[in-house]
């Protein structure tokens, strides 16, 4: 009889211990479940951030390639335009020199009109005309000089400054 009571008491103690243990560990289990959820959230967040960033970097990279190509295309066109300008400069010089001769004869005519003027207003008009033509001729002459300059070697005194900072 004594042994049965002892066994019952032991069983009861065991059951009570199981529930007490379960109760006391509940908060730890809850904390673990919370941490598990947080870890999953964190992983999902990581994956989303990573994908978003990858996409953004890909877009930035594509824009960069497009911008580079645009710069290269523009520079190529600029080089081609410049080459054409250099190649056709002789023809332009020749045309401008003819134009200059024409302006010279107009200046001579304007000078004659200044001398032949009968009134002050005629003289002033002829003088204004002459001055305008002189300015026009100067502009053409300067442009021709600039065009002719293209194939002239840069003077060592100027080049030494430029080459001093360039490779």
């Amino acid at each position, binding site marked *: 009889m004594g042994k049965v009571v002892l066994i019952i008491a032991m069983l009861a103690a065991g059951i009570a211990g199981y529930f007490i243990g379960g109760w006391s560990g509940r908060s730890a289990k809850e904390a*673990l479940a*919370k*941490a*598990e959820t*947080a*870890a999953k*959230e*964190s*992983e999902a*967040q*990581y994956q989303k*951030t*990573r994908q*978003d*960033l*990858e996409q*953004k*970097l890909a877009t*930035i*990279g594509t*824009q*960069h390639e497009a*911008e*580079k190509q645009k*710069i*290269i295309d*523009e*520079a190529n066109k*600029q*080089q081609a335009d*410049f080459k054409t300008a*250099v190649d056709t400069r002789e023809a332009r010089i020749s045309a401008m020199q003819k134009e200059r001769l024409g302006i010279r004869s107009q200046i001579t005519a304007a000078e004659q009109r200044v001398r032949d003027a009968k009134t002050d207003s005629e003289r002033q008009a002829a003088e204004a005309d002459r001055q305008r033509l002189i300015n026009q001729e100067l502009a053409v002459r300067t442009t021709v000089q600039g065009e002719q*300059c*293209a*194939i*002239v*070697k*840069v003077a*060592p005194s100027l*080049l030494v400054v*430029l*080459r001093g900072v*360039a*490779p």
Partner: protein
Amino acid sequence: MKPLFLRAGLAGLALLAGGCTTVLPVIPKLVPCEIAAAQLQETCAAPGTIGPDVTYSDVIGVAITDRKNLRLCAEKNRFLVESINACNAAIAEHNKKLDAINSQIAK
């Protein structure tokens, strides 16, 4: 002899407990800032060579090339700055969300 059995028993229990444990990542992963390797290797070109017998036309030609290279270099700089800013923003945003999750756990 007894302590040996006791140690072996404890070690066995520890292994058993380890097998039943849920693995949680303690250190969060870092957001990678992955810029294409080829784009990272781009370099800025050096200025064009100016020889001793250059003409004014040659100098203009060098200037056109230098301008192109300068624009490309500036574009590369802009690209890198934009990429780094995007990475920094993503990392900051990620850290902010991790902080929010951590503060939720702490409650």
